[in-house]
């Protein structure tokens, strides 16, 4: 077993690169990703039950924007927002991007992140638990999900990306793909 995971902040260079990113464009990409996940993984949304209708504010504290996610099975939405424009939400999950990605990819345990205060939750605790549990069961790999959005072209992109990922993960300290299981 490894030592306690540390989550270094997103490197300054990367943060500077992200800051001017046009949110509408990012939003378009994320929205297509969310819709694709909903099509490919209905069981994730079934597991959320009534909590799917709630608004989750995903707040990676070391990047210049937040995401408002509404994981409805009949039409999920996700929008990137500047932190000052976050609007209304039912539950907020905040922490370094590295911690959030590691949790999505099953690298680390959400409760352990919470006990260590690496992540902070606010608002509807039950909804956060439901989301955490549903994501954990889904064994998501965001790279594979992104490739699926692109269709056949995505396969080539995915294999290229998988070769680059170890390097990118090392440079950024982020769990960019799922590493357990197949």
């Amino acid at each position, binding site marked *: *077993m490894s030592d*306690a995971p540390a989550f270094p902040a997103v490197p300054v260079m990367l943060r500077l690169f992200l800051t001017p990113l046009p949110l509408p464009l990012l939003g378009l990409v994320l929205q297509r990703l969310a819709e694709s996940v909903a099509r490919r993984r209905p069981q994730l949304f079934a*597991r*959320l*039950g009534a*909590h799917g209708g709630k608004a989750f504010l995903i707040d990676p504290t070391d990047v210049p924007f937040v995401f408002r996610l509404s994981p409805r099975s009949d039409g999920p939405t996700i929008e990137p927002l500047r932190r000052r424009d976050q609007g209304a939400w039912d539950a907020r999950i905040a922490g370094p991007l590295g911690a959030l990605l590691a*949790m999505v990819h*099953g*690298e*680390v*345990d*959400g*409760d*352990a992140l*919470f*006990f*260590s*205060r690496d992540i*902070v*939750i*606010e608002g509807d*605790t*039950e*909804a*956060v*638990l*439901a*989301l*955490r*549990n*549903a994501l*954990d*069961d*889904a*064994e998501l790999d965001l790279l594979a999900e992104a490739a699926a959005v692109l269709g056949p072209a995505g396969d080539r992109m995915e294999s290229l990306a998988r070769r680059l990922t170890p390097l990118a993960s090392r440079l950024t300290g982020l769990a960019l793909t799922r590493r*357990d*299981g197949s």
Partner: protein
Amino acid sequence: MPNRKTPELVCPAGTPAALRAAVDAGADSIYCGFQDETNARNFPGLNFTPEELAAGIGYAHARGARVLVAINTFSRAGAAGTWHGAVDTAAALGADAVILADIGLLDYAATRHPELRRHLSVQAAAANADAIRFYSEAFGVKRVVLPRVLTVSEIAAINREISCETEVFVFGGLCVMAEGRCSLSSYATGKSPNMNGVCSPASHVHYREEGGELVSRLGEFTMDRVPKHHPAPYPTLCKGCFTAGAYRGHVFEDPVSLDAATLIPQLLAAGVSAFKIEGRQRSRSYIRDVVTSFRRAVDAHASGLPIPAGTLQRLSEGQTTTAGAYRKTWR
């Protein structure tokens, strides 16, 4: 001395992914429950549909592991059908055992499904040889999960007097009260382990930052206030910080969790057949790490090697661990 007796490693799964992770990490048995109030981890986003359980049993059996289905709450008056249905489904899907606590349900299972192996849940709080004998004689219980209030020598004494197997918790959350006999949660929230399968449910939990402190509340009651950057406890009622007379602190139990890895030799010598890991509410990453660690510890002991030192603290609540009631000083 190699080839000592190896205990059965019984591991939790709150989701199909966690079940596969546990099997792959070396669990001998996996325990899980249905998506309703029939099991004592009735948490949002957790547990199995009958279809998922069927697939999980298939996955486990193909790899030589067993699946135990926990139906360990107390059925509600006028609604026995839900609990009976859960036992029927577990039997139909080929579960290797059901884990039960309620006398009415034990009676039902023993009568309707005599061939289905019955384990007594820790929720039944059978804490001595007489009580265990009652359950095994009345309902043919083959294994008893012992309450977490006993010392190792008390466990040894029990095993000398009974004929059925015993299973003990070795890792995870620690109930300080006799399980199945605690209504603290419903006193504060209306929802209890016995009736609803939840303790200190997330639906009643609220966190608030206040003057540099994180305040955790359960229902209408403050459970704790911790300074920024200190480990954050989940506001489980019996781990809260309160005042009692001149005392201020954790009246019932510190926010720690159980780690009895170092007691594996003593527990085996006390005649324990199975080691149980708590945590159906935890992630597949947790399951993988804890099961791997205990598989290694149990195998090391079986081959006469020393047990590797504990590496699991960061996964624990309060990030500290205790041997709990197994050592008498705990009381």
